């Protein structure tokens, strides 16, 4: 029996040695491939990690920047990297798998709390376009939500916003049903399985319009007391920004022009996007509806991409109030407008 056990032990040790060799080789191969990236055709490659595991119309300014040669003129080859889940963008840029992130503002706050030295370098949107969504024609009365079922997601933005919904409705969490969804709460809404959905309005409008041809009823959270803070921002690791400040500036300068052009020419901008991603689901109508619904949240031309210290104070306050944020910092730790200059 001893001989049998020692044979097993030898096998286990052999397996452990093989695993170790595999892990070390993979680590070496990974670092080697990362080091060899970066420059192609005289342009500097900038990898932008998207916020969602699938591309959608929020990438319009980036694809316009490429299609209209704005990034090329700035000496950049911008590539969009799709993350594996909805909450890995910050981790990916922290691990060097991307240079610039497209995140929610709450991701930056949680990232800093987790010890990740991530910083927002520009706003994507200027306003909070999150709210309650009902079927086309239905009326949303925030004072009458008691007993209703409200579809929610598990993301940090929903968690920060829901207390405002409950407070405005004068109810506690147990007085409404809150079915949790991972990917979509609009289909159950349209099927009559929930009374209200929660979503950012650009996605809700695009989905409902492409499904029914009608605009959904919406109530922005800012109408019942939620802070008017941007949902999405562009981010970078402080370590990357220190060594690649010129690239960050060039990226934001070209992106600002791409935003302005995409706002002025929505149809052409969406066509550029669909040419870059022809196999994307939803088609022209969905993407155009979505982009057009995104434009109002982007703010005025003069303030495109510019951040405010107050927005970070408000986000931190909202997350702390819900009890999901353990550590917070001064706004300057979360953002900088330095790369928007020059």
């Amino acid at each position, binding site marked *: 029996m001893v001989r049998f056990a020692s044979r097993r032990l030898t096998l286990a040790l052999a397996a452990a040695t093989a695993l170790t060799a595999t*892990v070390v080789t993979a680590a070496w191969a990974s670092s080697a491939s990362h080091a060899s990236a970066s420059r192609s055709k005289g342009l500097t490659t900038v990898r932008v990690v998207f916020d969602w595991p699938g591309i959608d119309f929020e990438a319009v300014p980036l694809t316009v920047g490429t299609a209209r040669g704005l990034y090329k003129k700035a000496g950049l080859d911008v590539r969009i990297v799709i993350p594996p889940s*909805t909450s890995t963008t910050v981790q990916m840029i922290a691990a060097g798998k991307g240079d610039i992130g497209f995140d929610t503002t709450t991701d930056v706050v949680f990232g800093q709390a*987790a010890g990740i030295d991530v910083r927002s370098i520009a706003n994507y949107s200027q306003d909070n376009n999150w709210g309650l969504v009902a079927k086309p024609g239905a009326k949303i009365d925030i004072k009458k939500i008691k007993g209703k079922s409200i579809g929610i997601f598990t993301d940090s933005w929903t968690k920060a916003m829901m207390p405002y919904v409950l407070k405005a409705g004068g109810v506690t969490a147990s007085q409404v049903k809150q079915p949790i969804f*991972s990917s979509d709460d609009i289909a*159950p809404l349209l099927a009559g*399985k929930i009374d209200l959905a929660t979503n950012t309005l650009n996605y809700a409008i695009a989905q409902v319009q492409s499904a029914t041809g009608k605009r959904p009823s919406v109530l922005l959270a800012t109408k019942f007391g939620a802070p008017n803070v941007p949902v999405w921002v562009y981010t970078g690791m402080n370590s990357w920004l220190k060594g690649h400040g010129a690239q960050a500036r060039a990226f934001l300068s070209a992106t600002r022009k791409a935003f302005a052009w995409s706002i002025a020419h929505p149809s052409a901008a969406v066509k550029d996007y669909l040419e870059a991603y022809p196999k994307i689901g939803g088609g022209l109508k969905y993407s155009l509806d979505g982009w057009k619904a995104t434009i109002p949240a982007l703010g005025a031309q003069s303030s495109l991409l510019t951040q405010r210290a107050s927005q970070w104070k408000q986000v931190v306050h909202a997350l702390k109030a819900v009890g*999901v944020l353990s550590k917070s910092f001064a706004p300057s730790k979360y953002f900088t407008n330095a790369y928007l200059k020059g």
Partner: protein
Amino acid sequence: MNAFLRKTAVRLVMAALAVGLIFGVWNLVIFAFDLKSYALPTPQDSVATIYDRWSTYQPLLLQTIKETVDGFLIGAAIGFALGVAMSASKIVQRLIYPALITSQAVPVVAVAAPLAILLGFGLVTKLVIVAWWVFFPVVVNVLDGLARVDRDLLNLARVMGAKRTRTFLAIQLPATLSPLFSGLKIGATYAVTAAVIGEWVASLQYGLGTYLNTAAASLDTRGVMGATILLTMIGITLFLIVTAIGVVATPWERRSTARRGIRSLFVNDRKGARRWFGSLPAD
């Protein structure tokens, strides 16, 4: 008894070594790739998180166990019944088998939204998803077991005048046990993953699956890995329980004991002699 204790002790030591090996490789990956805790916490930190947040984890754990076990039992029962029905009738088999294979090729996530709309956001949707994943290996194994029953034994029973039900209970049913438990063991490991997907689809109650999402959304990787360890433990425990029941139910696999079914084919006649049941005169 001493031999049994020694054997059990060796197995426990090997299991502990295996766990140690997994934790060692986990730490090695962190070291080799220079992973920070926000990407992948150490197993030590993850286990400590379970201890620290036990009051949070406990109700979530119970909810996910309920979904996993109930769905597993339903899937196993459906799988067994389908396997038997398909074995009994070639027409049924030809009709249902392609549909079953297709059902497994369909990504559950893709039909998750319609399922939730159809069945609601309560326990039923999760049970359907778990059963969906569990029943297939059970069907395939039961069908395989029934197809491999000794033809000579079946012919002998028929010649001896055994009724179809008796033949099934005495010969075919015991023959399905070994393959059935193989299918159940595969199903046991699938069940917990299916329960997590069920929770991700739509849920009124928080379980470990929904907790994974909320923790990930706030970059709480320790919380994520703590929940992952608990989910893994549910799967392993279910696997071990099925294995233990399998050991008790199929003693002939470990010692020279005839299958209960085959033994039951022999009965005592009026004089107390052991005889093949088919040869007894009708009363």
